[in-house]
């Protein structure tokens, strides 16, 4: 009887191990070049993750139609970060250790990107980030690049928008993670430097279902405006509960489509804010191509930024070589000659985006549109 049990156990283990034996096929056989991409395909930032993924898919389609990399097709392995740092790092491990990719596009939330980036940097794998904006991104290392401008750009611009609109008394609402803290830092700095008064700062905990206590504290000081940024699902709850509390103030959002993407239109009507611009010709071309391929408008700026990231990697591969180090060295150069969907894209000495044009937007009638004061 005992041997039977041992046999059963052995059988179970063998069956489970079977798939791993077939593993040689991954990593791009047959002349394909493989890179990796990690996006939040589930969890709080699904809306943005899917958007990013589509941007990359569109880019890859165009790249391969354009001859690929010296005749070889580009292939992307997509991984889900689940909007959690653990899963993001796990995905990075898999792509780097198992699939041996030279470059990864990803991720989205700074809290998720930074740990994965640290591992990629350590292993000498290029990572191009289309979504995270924490100032800490500049400290990761020479293998890490961002196509999106960091918080010091957005945070200050957002504060300036509030001041331009005539608000001098504001409260701040950001997520409690590296992204939120980065935004907070720069919003506070710019707002106060220019004579504004910050009444309260709330760093809301992620992934909660009820924010009434936080919102109560937020409105305690009677702010005129709320300088905020929040991830899709959490923003949905925050704005809804704020409305149900009867609280009134002008909401000014950073990355407005992210803040309003899945929210109930009623609860975010009248919000104004900023996000990376994409109305330039290359951006418009992307919008058209996107609509044709996916049947709907892009969800926000992140698809454009991910698209730019994918194209830059491909161009770097064409220029230098297909290994990580060559890509790393070629990226700053190819960026200068590349007409990005999001405007002038150049990398500074830390591999981060030098300048970022922003659009001023307002949410009205269930969608976001350009805001003319």
């Amino acid at each position, binding site marked *: 009887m*005992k041997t039977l*049990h*041992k046999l*059963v*156990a052995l059988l*179970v*283990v063998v069956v*489970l*191990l079977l*798939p*791993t*034996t*077939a*593993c*040689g096929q*991954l990593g791009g056989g047959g002349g394909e070049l493989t890179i990796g991409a990690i996006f939040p*395909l*589930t969890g709080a930032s*699904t809306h943005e993750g899917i958007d990013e993924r589509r941007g990359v898919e569109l880019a890859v389609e165009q790249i391969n139609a354009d001859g690929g990399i010296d005749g070889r097709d580009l292939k992307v*392995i*997509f*991984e*889900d970060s*689940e909007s*959690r*740092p*653990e*899963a993001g*790092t*796990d*995905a990075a*491990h*898999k792509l780097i*250790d*198992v699939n*041996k990719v030279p470059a990864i596009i990803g991720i989205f939330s700074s*809290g998720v990107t*930074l*740990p*994965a980036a*640290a*591992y990629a*940097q*350590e292993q000498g794998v290029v990572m191009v980030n289309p979504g995270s904006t924490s100032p800490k991104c500049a400290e990761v290392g020479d293998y890490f690049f961002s196509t999106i401008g960091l918080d010091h750009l957005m945070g200050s611009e957002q504060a300036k928008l509030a001041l331009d609109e005539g608000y001098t008394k504001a409260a701040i609402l950001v997520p*409690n*993670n*590296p992204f939120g803290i980065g935004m907070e830092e720069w919003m506070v700095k710019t707002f106060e430097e220019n004579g504004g008064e910050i009444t309260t700062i709330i760093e809301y*905990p*992620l992934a909660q279902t009820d924010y009434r206590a936080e919102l109560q504290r937020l409105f305690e000081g009677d702010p005129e405006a709320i300088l905020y940024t929040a991830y899709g699902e959490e923003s949905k709850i925050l704005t809804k509960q704020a409305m149900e509390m009867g609280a009134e103030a002008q909401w000014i959002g950073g990355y407005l489509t992210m803040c309003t993407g899945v929210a109930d239109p009623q609860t975010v009507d009248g919000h104004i804010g900023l996000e990376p611009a994409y109305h330039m010709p290359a951006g418009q071309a992307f919008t058209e191509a996107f609509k044709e391929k996916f049947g709907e408008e892009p969800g926000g700026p992140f698809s454009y930024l991910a698209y730019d990231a994918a194209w830059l990697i491909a161009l770097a591969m064409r220029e230098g070589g297909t290994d990580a180090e060559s890509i790393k060295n070629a990226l700053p150069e190819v960026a200068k000659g590349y007409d990005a969907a999001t405007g002038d894209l150049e990398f500074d000495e830390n591999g981060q985006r030098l300048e970022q044009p922003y659009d001023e937007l307002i949410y009205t009638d269930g969608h976001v549109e350009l805001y003319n004061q």
Partner: protein
Amino acid sequence: MLAFLIHFLVMTGIFAIVALSLNFQVGLTGLSNFGQAAFMLIGAYTSAMMYMAGVPFVFGVLAGMVVSSIFALIIALPSHNLRADYWAIVSIAAAESLRLFVNNEKWLAEGPFGIRGIPRPLSSLFGDSYTLFYLVFVVVCLAAVYFALERLNRSPFGRVLRGLREAEDLMEALGKDVFRFKALAMIVGGLVAALGGSLYAHYITFISPETFAPDVTFLIWTMMIVGGSGNAKGVLLGALVITLLNTSTRLLKDYLYLPSSLVAALRTLSIGVLTIGFVVARPQGILPERRHVVSYGKEEGGS
């Protein structure tokens, strides 16, 4: 593929160490400890922070063990005469409170951002073949833990612990200080789990309060139940099977063309189903506990 195999074995080794620690507390002593993730957290954070502050790796790990022993004592103190289900709740509550504290107090350990870029000890020495070295290191630790715990199991100390599990009142009547033994069992288990936590931190290079959510504790429990509670070899087997399920799902999706969004859910579903299946059909696990036949004056192994 070798890379994946090595990665998988490292993870198995790490979890096996923690599973053995749980087995010592639950399988042997009968304490329903559901706060194991907290001990891992303590070990991971302590050794990571100390190593990054320049303290030699070994000292950091030992420090983690010391802190977790203290925490084990803190849990044992108010709970020592509680029933199993109370123990479960209190230990979960204690573990969650610790996790909440680490999460909220940014000055302590970066709060929710976690600690990233944890350096791997001796990484410069091994370069490309580092993971292989780490595997050997983990296996050595596992072997040490295994034999140490087995020694304790067969010792008079282990007999008392088993006695506590089977007939606590009898032990008390025999004059054994029940609290002391339970506390010791918690401490031993706690510091072994801390070792596991440290090994995890320096391998994955990133930890955050989220890493040590109750899900991890339930995972370890499943390993113990599936493998065989009370049987160290069984627990090792359980760790192997469950870790395989856990790590290979990300890989499997590339073959089975599963939508990425389903992978995470299917992983937890299979583990839940496995737990129930074993609890109902075969609660003793794949390898049941070997009953030691005690004859007068001597002890022999037997089954």
